[in-house]
């Protein structure tokens, strides 16, 4: 499997006559873009707003982030979800780097939605403050979940993908600024030198705790709750085979932007043939029943063992109950003699004194910590809000509460509600330390 990723480094995004990309500037014809958004009749209102790093802007409720991309050859964008089902990970894909399409609720937020500050102290919390964000601010007719705390956000998430695809088309015929090639041959076709390096697997535990469909991460459109751990080629993930779900406090989530830019996978690919023999990605899940947790952990162990793994990196998309799936997998792998590094966030409470994970194990002796979901943040008012700031206080956001939005627009919140802030795919420099 060979994937060529062509990067276009976007310097600026603005509105204009024609949707096009020229000399580092992405120009968007707003009307035409909104027509694409409104191809789904469930979208009842839509607007586009651009937010740049350093702007005095607060964005919430953010439901999803997607990198503008197009497939030049060898497949379709987001197969099995946005487009027809076919294999991902081959051919050529172009991406507008440094930008993201954000799906933002015009009014209604929920447990799983997030907040992004483009400047000020809050801008350190999440990597999304560093991107030029093309905010799709929209409302839908999904009345059944308007007042629900848990929302599937289906219309908005799909509209975001359509918009990202539409914008990505601008660079389909152009020459990228930079090209990255991802190639990982079958296990038996690797050089002797590579085969002598320690074999490493990456274990991705997708959020899949909801029993009802529509909330969990999707693998080629398939609900991660309804799958058993399986082996995937890293290219498939970097090329859009997995999309983010709509459940779990936002800071713990992996957005679709982060899946296709999974930095841990990219680093493992770079190490392949030099320091390690990268065996592949075991995509697993996070479950609510003990038997399911055990079953998945056994599958992960068996797959890793059969592949000859000596090392593994385990990434957990969530916190709380999923900590047990995380610890089970680490225990199983360590018991099989595979050396594990885990990457996850933690929940130590506002005073920082609580135990970091709900389940502990002495075998989990190498953990990268990417954030504390319960870190209390006090953030000053912003000149502009994109979306609806009250949603943080009103709609059951996991990081907000009644009264957390002050009259002057300043807010108090827990990191829980910062959009995809704990970067468990390895894209941020935040950690947790002991005082």
């Amino acid at each position, binding site marked *: 499997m060979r994937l060529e990723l062509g990067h276009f480094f976007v310097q600026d995004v603005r509105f204009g006559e024609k949707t096009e990309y020229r000399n580092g500037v992405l120009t968007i014809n707003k009307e035409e873009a909104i027509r694409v958004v409104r191809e789904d009749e469930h979208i009842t209102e839509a607007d586009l707003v651009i937010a740049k790093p350093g702007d005095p802007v607060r964005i919430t409720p953010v439901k999803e982030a997607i990198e503008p991309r197009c497939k030049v050859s060898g497949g379709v964008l987001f197969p099995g979800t946005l487009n027809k089902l076919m294999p991902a990970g081959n051919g050529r894909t172009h991406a507008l780097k440094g930008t993201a399409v954000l799906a933002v609720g015009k009014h209604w937020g929920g*447990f799983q939605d997030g907040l992004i500050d483009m400047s000020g102290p809050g801008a350190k919390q999440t990597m999304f403050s560093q991107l030029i964000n093309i905010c799709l601010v929209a409302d839908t007719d999904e009345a059944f979940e308007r007042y629900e*705390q*848990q929302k599937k956000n289906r219309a908005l998430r799909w509209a975001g993908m359509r918009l990202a695809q539409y914008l990505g088309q601008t660079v389909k015929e152009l020459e990228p600024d930079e090209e990255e090639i991802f190639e990982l041959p079958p296990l038996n076709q690797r050089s002797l030198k590579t085969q002598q390096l320690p074999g*490493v697997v990456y274990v991705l535990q997708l959020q899949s*705790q*909801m029993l*009802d469909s529509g909330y969990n991460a999707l693998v080629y459109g398939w609900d991660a709750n309804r799958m058993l751990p399986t082996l995937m080629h890293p290219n498939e993930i970097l090329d859009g085979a997995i999309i983010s779900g709509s459940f779990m*406090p936002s800071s713990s989530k992996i957005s679709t932007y982060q899946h296709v830019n999974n*930095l*841990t996978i990219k*680093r493992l690919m770079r*190490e392949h043939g030099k*320091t390690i023999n990268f065996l592949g990605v075991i995509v697993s899940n996070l479950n*609510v029943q003990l038997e399911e947790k055990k079953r998945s952990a056994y599958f992960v162990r068996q797959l890793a063992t059969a592949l000859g793994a*000596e*090392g593994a*990196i385990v990434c957990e998309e969530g916190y*709380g109950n999923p900590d047990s799936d995380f610890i089970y997998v680490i225990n199983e792998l360590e018991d099989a003699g595979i*050396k594990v*590094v885990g990457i996850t966030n933690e*929940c*130590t*409470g*506002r*005073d*920082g*004194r*609580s*135990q*970091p*994970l709900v389940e*502990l*194990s*002495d075998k989990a*002796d*190498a953990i*990268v*910590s*990417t954030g*504390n*979901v*319960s870190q209390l943040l006090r953030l000053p008012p912003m000149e502009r809000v994109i979306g609806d700031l009250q949603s943080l206080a009103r709609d*059951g956001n*996991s990081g907000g509460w*009644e009264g957390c939005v002050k009259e002057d627009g300043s807010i108090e919140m*827990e990191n*829980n509600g910062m959009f995809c802030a704990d*970067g*468990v*795919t*390895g*894209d*941020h*420099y*935040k*950690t*947790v*330390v*002991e*005082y």
Partner: protein
Amino acid sequence: MKRAIHYLNQFFGQIGGEEKADHEPEIREGVVGPGILLNNLLAPEVEVTHTVICGDNFFGSHKEEAIERILNDLKDKPFDLFIAGPAFMAGRYGVACGAICEAVQEQFGVPAVTSMHEENPGKELYYKSIYIFPGGNSAVAMRKDMAAIASFAKKLATGQPLGPAREEGYIPRGIRHEAFIDPPRLGADRAVEMLLKKLKGEPYQTEMPMPKGDRPAIAPAVKVEEAKLAIVTSGGIVPKGNPDRIQSASATKWGKYDISNLDRLNAGEWETIHAGFDPTFANQNPNVIVPLDALRAYERENKIGQLHPYYYCTVGTGTTQAEASRMGREIAQELLEAQVSAAILVST
């Protein structure tokens, strides 16, 4: 100029050795013994104005009295810092340093710093509440240990920003907060580089040391057929409308609800507000979380003495351990007052 007060035992306070270990607490102006070194190291920003001296045995056997008398002696003295020891491997001295630091810090709100060997029993008792620097095992380490205390104490007194425990050098207090790695190192690089080290058998540092759990003593068996039994749940079952506004995640509130006239919890009248799972099933039949119907049946069969008239409820998702412990203590208090002797807790 900021002021510090220094605590010493009878030996370092130059009263005498083991035979003087019953020496009662006293306070003196100025510095004594190792206080001279401390004062030199703290100058010019901080001055040691007084020295408290207490015998280790006196402190150990009359702990409350010793603390009370020392706090009383300090009442009218203005000071910005409290420093004890260093205590090295001296067990009684280490415990006394820890205890007096904790008490002074709590009473006067000034930071307290001490130093002792990591195996000194005082460390395990007090590292979570005060700053303890890891020290040598005997007075040979005096100069080094005192220097560590002094440079940190200066920072405290002058209000300089403090780094995490590992940077400052004190024993981590079990308080974990977010920090930004400077210069930035992304999670992906940290994870892969940690794995490479682990694979090679080289030393590496986990970012999340596993804490040791603490487990309560096992309560004895009860005669259930005579017991007053209470139901507690973290599954968020509340009367429809959630009258106490318990949060559906990261809860800080709990509620108690009268079930004395009920045989079961009916759908429509009770619901779950727990945000961490699909609520459909529990809303259709709240007894799947609060098994009132089954417990009433056992009560009728005389297999339970009596069901407590209230059940207690909070939400267990995202709830920190500290909040859960506080709520647990509050509920336990209610249960004790109601003479409940056994409880069933249903968690989700």
